[in-house]
């Protein structure tokens, strides 16, 4: 329990950075993170329950999943983490933990490989996690119209779709701002709907 004067309790929040393998997730995290992106690994065993004796699961039954992440100190008592999703979407077990309690997600797409993010978008929609689509423009080339991308991904008009350059700090910053604004606007709509 916090004492009455302890109004600003120490806490953290996270934003998930998703997208296909090699699309630039870690680059995007690194462009705004105050630390060089770190990698954390999770081990999945075939027996998903904990094993409390010495007869542990053999090597072949384990899979290691790596996630890169960065950090932004918003205030002394509020830290924002950016977690990149594991490259392969088959590691869904890790995604559950990643999205739990997240503010929302950025789906980073490469227009040459749009299909890579279909399953990611399905997952976020199923989990009701707010997301936006950031189209990574390599060399500043905007090869596709936003509406074409929207149609190809079959996402609704409310979902923001914008161009970005994952290497550029200012560009990444704008994408993060857009996501938080979007989540706030969704909350306001929901509140209005209740009254």
């Amino acid at each position, binding site marked *: 329990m916090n004492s009455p004067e302890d109004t600003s309790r120490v806490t953290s929040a996270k934003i998930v950075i998703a997208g296909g393998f090699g699309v630039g997730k870690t680059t995007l995290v690194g462009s705004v993170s105050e630390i060089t992106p770190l990698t*954390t690994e*999770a081990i999945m065993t075939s027996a998903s329950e*904990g094993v409390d004796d010495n007869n*542990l699961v053999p090597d072949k039954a384990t899979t290691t999943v790596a996630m890169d992440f960065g950090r932004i100190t*918003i205030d002394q008592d509020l830290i*924002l*983490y950016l977690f990149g999703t594991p490259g392969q979407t088959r590691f869904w077990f890790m995604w559950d933990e990643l999205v739990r309690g997240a503010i929302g997600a950025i789906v980073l797409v490469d227009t040459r490989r749009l299909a890579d993010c279909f399953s990611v978008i399905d997952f976020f929609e199923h989990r009701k996690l707010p997301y936006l689509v950031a189209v990574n423009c390599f060399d500043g080339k905007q090869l596709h119209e936003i509406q074409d991308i929207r149609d190809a991904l079959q996402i609704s008009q409310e979902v923001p779709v914008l161009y970005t350059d994952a290497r550029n700090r200012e560009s990444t910053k704008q994408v993060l701002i857009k996501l938080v604004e979007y989540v*706030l606007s969704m*909350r306001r709509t929901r509140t209005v709907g209740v009254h």
Partner: protein
Amino acid sequence: MVLGGDEPTGSLVRPYAVTRGRTRPQLEIALEALVETTARGRSGQFLGGREQKVIVDLCGGRLQSLAEIAARMEVPLGVARVLVADMAADGLLAVHEPTGFDADGGDESVGTELLERVLSGLRRL
């Protein structure tokens, strides 16, 4: 770095050796939960091994998340979770849980206020 010398941590047995084979933490701790060394932890009198010393030092300055502890110690997340949970139970560490933003959980107004703080923080970057 900290554990196992030059051996790659390819098997499940080796990384969990430091927890004496336990894979289940005393406390569920989120990836982004912030960990802080308490005065009891800082005193150094109650530490139970090299890993505990490393964690106490790591979290004695600025706040570190569980994910950062795992990454900086080069141990799997599950191992860090067991270690941190044990130390929190012994009063060596304080664990600050994150604010969840799930649509159907938590206090809506708390979440909104925090989102506004995150937004102004991002604009200041």
